[in-house]
């Protein structure tokens, strides 16, 4: 059989060339199906790795608690007594101390600018009580995190991003350590000493002008509270569950605890929460839905395409009845006739598959670019897709090819 393979492929290509339009229309179903499936694989891979990145950078055990209205009502405004007090947070920490790794409180001072001659960097000044929740060790490029003693004293120290270092200190993080910077926020100047530089997490797809990018400048929480008097009340806070704690369950229990003890008499406001786990799960469910819809379109298209291939093969075999008779008279066995037409169906499907692959990559890139993260395609995906289209050729080519193989040579030769 091997010695006929190239002849069969050559004959198939000649046939496709002779009936360009017909062959193209036949391939279209396979093409669209493969394109849809490739696009969804790319988008799915991209989204999955995006979610994984996000979970890794924020922490999968992160839970956020926030004050929300019981019923949406524009006319009700939030008073200080509706907010979360430091006392409440302390009580939560006490009640659940066996399950809470740490509590992160942040208060924003606001957007500001650091200026030195012509150099400048845009920052968002954020007071935070915890460093361990924000960075892994390997994300600290130089210096150190803010110490708990500095937290307690409210020392004027800051952690800045590598972007700020690029703009202000020409890229060397070590040069920035120990330097004082003046930050202008709301027409007020604040002076901080840089103690550490962290690697900023940015999405490359989103990057416009990197010089103007706003990065976070972290200072001890107390430093911000000194400026914003009512900051002892917060509208939200984060906790990190301990390793092995079911964050979904913990989130529910803390929410219930806070609502029963602190908000039972509040007619308008209550505490609600969301967890990274739930976020990721929700996102995964959405991806799953998109995958099912796109996969369904692909599958239906492939099925219709496959039937189209089968149909055109039957037409082609009927047209070539005399050729089949002649080949049989010249000594072709049923097996070699069958192989010839299966090869032809495979070639049609494979060409459709290859074009579909190209189109799918374009479509997938367009989708993932539009959403804002890179789509990826593994070599295994590509091989699987090509093998899949070949398998389609075998599956939908077998019946027509078998029909050709079983033709009676006399009838075939006599066919007009």
């Amino acid at each position, binding site marked *: 059989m091997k*010695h*006929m393979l*190239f*002849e069969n492929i050559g*004959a198939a290509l*000649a*046939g496709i060339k*002779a009936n360009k339009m017909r062959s193209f229309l036949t391939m279209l179903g396979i093409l669209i199906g493969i394109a849809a499936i490739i696009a969804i694989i790319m988008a799915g891979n991209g989204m999955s790795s995006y979610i994984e990145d996000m979970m890794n950078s924020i922490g999968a055990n992160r839970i956020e608690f926030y004050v929300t209205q019981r019923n949406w009502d524009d006319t009700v405004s939030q008073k200080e007594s509706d907010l979360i007090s430091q006392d409440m947070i302390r009580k939560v920490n006490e009640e659940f101390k066996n399950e809470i790794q740490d509590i992160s409180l942040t208060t924003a001072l606001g957007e500001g600018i650091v200026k030195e001659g012509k150099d400048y960097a845009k920052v968002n000044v954020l007071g935070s009580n915890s460093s361990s929740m924000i960075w892994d060790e390997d994300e600290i490029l130089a210096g150190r995190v803010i110490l708990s003693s500095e937290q307690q004293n409210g020392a004027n120290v800051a952690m800045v991003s590598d972007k700020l270092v690029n703009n202000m200190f020409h890229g060397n993080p070590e040069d920035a350590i120990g330097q004082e910077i003046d930050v202008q926020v709301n027409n007020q100047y604040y002076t901080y000493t840089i103690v550490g530089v962290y690697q900023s997490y940015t999405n490359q797809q989103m990057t416009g002008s990197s010089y103007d990018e706003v990065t976070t400048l972290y200072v001890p929480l107390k430093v911000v509270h000194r400026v914003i008097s009512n900051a002892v009340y917060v509208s939200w806070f984060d906790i990190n569950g301990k390793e092995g704690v079911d964050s979904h369950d913990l989130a529910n229990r803390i929410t219930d605890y806070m609502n029963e003890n602190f908000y039972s008499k509040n007619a308008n406001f209550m505490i609600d929460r969301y967890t990274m786990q739930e976020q990721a799960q929700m996102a995964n469910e959405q991806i799953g839905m998109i995958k099912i819809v796109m996969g369904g379109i692909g599958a239906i298209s492939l099925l219709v395409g496959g039937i189209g291939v089968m149909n055109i093969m039957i037409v082609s075999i009927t047209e070539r009845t*005399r*050729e089949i*008779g*002649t*080949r*049989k*008279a*010249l*000594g*072709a*066995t*049923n*097996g*070699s006739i069958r192989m010839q037409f299966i090869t032809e169906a495979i070639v049609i499907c494979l060409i459709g598959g290859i074009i579909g692959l190209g189109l799918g990559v374009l479509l997938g890139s367009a989708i993932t670019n539009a959403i804002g993260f890179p789509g990826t395609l593994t070599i295994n995906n590509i091989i699987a897709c090509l093998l899949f289209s070949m398998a389609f050729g075998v599956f939908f080519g077998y019946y027509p090819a078998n029909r050709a193989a079983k033709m009676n*040579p*006399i009838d075939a*030769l006599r066919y007009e």
Partner: protein
Amino acid sequence: MENDVIIDLSQIVKKFYVGKENELEILHGIDLKVRRGEFVSIVGASGSGKSTLMNIIGILDRPTSGNYLLDGVDVCKANDKEVSHIRNKKIGFVFQTYNLIARTNALKNVELPMMYAGVSKRERTARAKELLRLVDMEERMDHTPDELSGGQKQRVAIARALGNDPSIILADEPTGALDSKTGRMIMDLFHKLNREKGITIVLITHSNELAEETQRIVTLKDGEIVGERKGEAYAV
């Protein structure tokens, strides 16, 4: 000498079953022996059963009863695959309508039976060129059938029939679609192959004139052999 008989048909009966119980007997016990190197013609009016006989000789069809030894092999007992191989190796078909494979050049057409025989690409290309030279079509080997005249097509078809050095050439009205001058050329080619290469040729025709050129004329009528005689115009 028994060894000299290449086609040995005895008591060949062929029945067709039309509808339920209507059987139609086309051949009523044919006995025919063809010697190696012989040029035989089978003549008869349409409906005489000569096409059916040709199909049986070419093993495209099997007799209802009777025996057929082709080059000493009992082909009635062979299965489909074996029959394909016998056709491939022992028989070269030449059809009235040429039956060249469309969109495939002359060279590839001639290579076809060798491809089915499993001959390597290089070897079959070399042999196909040689055969095209024999029929004087070497210069047109890159042409596809729709670029060739009727006579040229038939010459390519004859070259193709010779691919695997067959024991016999079975020619079914080979000049039927050609003008008389071109037909003459094809007949001359058959004579040359028969004379110089010793190839056995069985010619099926309704033309008495052509039949007279052959060594022996077998006349078929209503499914029976009604006469055998020497061709008057056969040139030794």
